[in-house]
Each structure stands twice: as C-alpha cells, then as structure tokens.
C-alpha cells in the first residue's frame, strides 16, 4: 500500500478532544462494553485440563476457552476499577467471541477476539478503554492549537518601520543591497581606528611618566 493509498484509506486529522474533555474534568469516553462469547462451544462449561493436554480439543475450542478465562478471572476487577463503564456479558451459542465498545460521542468499535488469549483480551480491553470514540485516523501533528501565533499573522509589514511610507521613490538607501558582512573598507576603517586608539594610549603613558619624573 503506497503512502497515498494509505492516507486515502485512513484519512487524517488533528488531535482533538470530544466536548473540551479534560479542560474541566476528565470523563472516560467508553460508556459500555459488551463481551460476546460462546459458553459451551467445543466442550462443556467446565472444560477439563486433561482434555487440553491430551489434545482432544481442537485449537479453536481452546482459544475460545481463553476468551472465557478473561471473563472468569479479570472482568470483575475491570468493572470495579471502571465504575463508569457498563459491562455486558452476552453468551451466544456457537459464535466466535467479540468485543463491542460504545463511546459517549456515538462512536462504536467492534473487535473480533477469535483465537485471542486472556492476555490479548486484557490488552485490547485496556486499548478500547482509553479510546476517545473518534475513528482511527492518522494524526497530522501531536499537538494542536487554534491560535498558532499569539503575535498575530505575519504580514509584509511585520517589524517594518512606518517611516518608509514617506520616502521618495526610487530611494537609493532602500534599494541598496542589505549589508550582512563587513566590507574591506569597513575592516580598514576599523584597523585605522584601533591604531589611533593605541597611539593615544601610548602618548598618555609617556606624559604620565614625564610628569612623575619631573615631580621627583
């Protein structure tokens, strides 16, 4: 998939938060999550360990059992930690397991957890819990502001002196190329100035010494 196709497929957007979330307080956007799974597929409810070991179960049955393992072990803890999320558990006969997450802004996320282990399900649930409900998109930048510049938008006259309004054109001073480096003339002038200062200092020292000797 080329970059262009990728962008067309995913779309792109700026970072945004639904309903100014987090300005006042943070509201978890996941409002309900449904675990759909099969209770009995490939075996009875209490699937015995020796069945797995002896390989009498197919691998598919084993993994569905893994999805149920999450419900047995971790779901109550998840519901306790997230009282704002309504958790539904929906057993369906002979259907593959899936997660359905619904968000406050009306967004929905469906995820198949076929052949997922308990850890996988745990991680995907944590992922769904942190989502905002907006569709997955390429984020153009990791920050966004409505006011990119507090100084105002740049104009041709930003940092220009209004005195140029009353100049008579053509103006040699304004038409001249801007000087960025000192020219040879400038350097010579600087050398001359420096020599002059040195000579003055020498003269002063000589005068001071002469004054001292005369006083002695």
């Amino acid at each position, binding site marked *: 998939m080329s970059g262009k196709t990728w962008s067309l497929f995913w779309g792109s957007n700026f970072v945004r938060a*639904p*309903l*100014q979330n987090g*300005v*006042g*307080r943070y*509201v*978890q956007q996941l*409002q*309900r999550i*449904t675990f759909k799974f099969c209770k009995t597929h490939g075996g009875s409810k209490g699937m015995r360990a020796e069945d797995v070991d002896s390989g009498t179960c197919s691998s598919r049955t084993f993994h569905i059992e893994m999805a149920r393992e999450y419900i047995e072990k971790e779901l109550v803890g998840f519901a306790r930690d997230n*009282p*704002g*999320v*309504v958790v*539904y558990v*929906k057993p369906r006969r002979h259907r593959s397991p899936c997660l359905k997450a*619904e968000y*406050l*802004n*009306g967004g929905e996320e469906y995820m198949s957890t076929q052949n997922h282990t308990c850890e996988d399900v745990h991680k995907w649930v944590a992922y769904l819990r942190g989502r905002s409900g907006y569709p997955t998109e390429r984020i153009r930048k990791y920050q966004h502001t*409505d*006011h990119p510049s*507090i100084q*105002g938008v740049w*104009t*041709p*006259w930003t940092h*220009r002196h*209004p005195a140029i*309004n009353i100049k008579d054109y053509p103006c040699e001073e304004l038409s001249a190329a801007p000087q960025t480096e000192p020219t040879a003339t400038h350097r010579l002038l600087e050398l001359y100035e420096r020599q002059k200062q040195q000579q003055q200092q020498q003269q002063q020292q000589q005068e001071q010494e002469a004054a001292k000797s005369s006083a002695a």
Partner: protein
Amino acid sequence: MAAWRRAITGAKHILASSCRPTINRTIFSSARVCGMQSRWVAPLYRELKHRHTKMKRMGLLPVNKRSEYIEWNYDAELYGFGKRLQVEFDAETLREALTDSSYVAQETQRQQELGVSDPGLTMSNNKDLAARGERIMSDYCGPYLRAALPLLPEEGVSALVEYLLSEDIMSAVGYGIGLRDLILCKEHPPSPTTMARCFRAIVGALGASPAAQCQAFVRDFVVAQLVGKDIDVIWKIENPMAVLGNILHQSRQGEPESRLIFQAGQKTLQAIYHVGVYSDKQCMGSGYGETVDTAVKEAAHDALRRLFHITDTARPLPFGRDADVLPLKTEANMSLDHWSIDKSKNVIMC
C-alpha cells in the same frame, strides 16, 4: 498427455455428479446446489452492503434504540452515568430528569390502548427540573464570567451567558455526555430541543447536592464550551468606532483618529490596508482590511479588544483549582455606555 487425460476425465466425473438428474434445477436454484461456487453470490452481497451503507449515510435506515437490545440494563446505565461524570445523583431525581413529557404521554396512550382505563402512572416529566437547572446555570455562569473577565462590559457577559444557555450548546453537551441512549422520549434519535431540556433537567437534578459540586459541574461541562472560541465573535459589537468614541469621551480623551499605516496592492484584487486608531497620539489598536473602511472597523475592534482584555493573548478562563478559589462577582460589570478607562483602572483583576 496422460495428466491431461486424467484431468478431463475428472472434470467429466464432477460434471456428471453435479448435474445428477435427481436434482430439480429451476431458474431459482443457484449453482451452489450443484456444489459449485457461484460467481454472483459475492457480488450480490457486496452490492447489498453498498446499498445499505449508502442508505445509512442518507439517514433512510430506521435507527434502533439502544434500549431495544437484549443487553440493556437501565439501572446499571444510570449508575454508570453518575460515576462517569464524577457526581452523585439522587436515583429518583435522575430518573425524573431523564423522562420527557412525550414519553409519559406515549406510555399513557399505550396503556389505554391495552384496555387499562386508569393507567395510574406516577411518572413525572422533567419540565420543573429543567427550569430549575436553567436558573442554576444562569446564576453561576454570569458571576463566574464577571469574575473571570472583569473588564468585559455587562452586555458582553449577558451575551456570553445567553450563548452558553442556547439550545445548540445545551444539546451538544447533552449528546456529548451520553444522554442519547438514556433519555426516555418518543422520538429517536432525540431532537436537539428535547436533548437541551433533558440536559437542563440533569443540572436541575444536581441542585439538591452541595452548591460547590453543582457549580463545578456547570463550569466543567457548560462554561468549558467557551474555550477556544472568540468572545467578540459571540458578542458582536455593531458600530465599534462609535463605541470607542463614546468610551474615549467618557475617559476625557481625544476623539479616535484612524491613520493609514501601510497599504499595498491598491487597485488590485488583493489590495490590503493597515490602519491604526489613535487618540491623543497614542495608538489604541490596529487592523487590516481589503478596503479602508473594513480596516478602520477592524482597528476599532482591536482597540476595544485591548481595552476589554479579550485579545488572543489574554489569560485563559480559570478552571479546576483556579476556579475553586475564584470569588464570584454578583454585581454587574460596567455597562458599555458607562465604560471608561479611568474606571477600569479601579477594577481588581484576579
């Protein structure tokens, strides 16, 4: 050669077995009956899916209520609703706040149709709570905005409060906190009017809780909608130059004079003028425009924004801990007719 022959014989065998005379082939039976993968089944499903998506996009498909699904527990939803927003609701009051009058009417009619002469429904609708909620919100938003923007004229404050209490904002917040599925009303999806009333009733239901909690809720969900919006877009000043002149007159300063600072591209489509507004040779503000008139208007707007401290660079509205310690201001701000620079120096900025 031998492989070819085997393949042809195999094919003949398959054809013979698939076209057994025992199968009654009609024009309705598909090739799947003969064990063949049809070439039209997948395209048909694809087309149906395409049409379904199209109808969904156009809003022609009936939308099921979430509460019609089997996995729906209203008590759990109400519990989660309060926990999610981090507020404590009284269970009965919350149910009342979510019950629209259309739902009560619908239920009464349904029971009468079923032959119950006296339905005896004890449900009450959310009209009273909505009125109470609106009062709570206007009682908080005004003092909060006056305290946060002390130099904004009273007209601006009331325009902002009116904007916050408008149906658009109320319904947007209502949809945003997930009332769409919880609300009990006749129509689905609930109309913005119903949704706005329901959200007001939710605030009204919070009225029984401590005032600080209720105010924090209003601030975090309603006032927060002002973040990132231009105040002078919500509150439009009709004739900014006249208003500025009036303010300068009140302040005993010179009349506003507009002066052209820069211009470029005259007599072209992309002409631009930069105009400054001066009073007693002091720059009050400057603005850009494609004509001189618009630039003058923009400059006067800019001068007013600077005077009222509502520029882009102004301090943001306080939320969280800053807002908890913000002393609310019940007395009105200076009105636009009496606004003066001398008086504004006496206003304490928090």
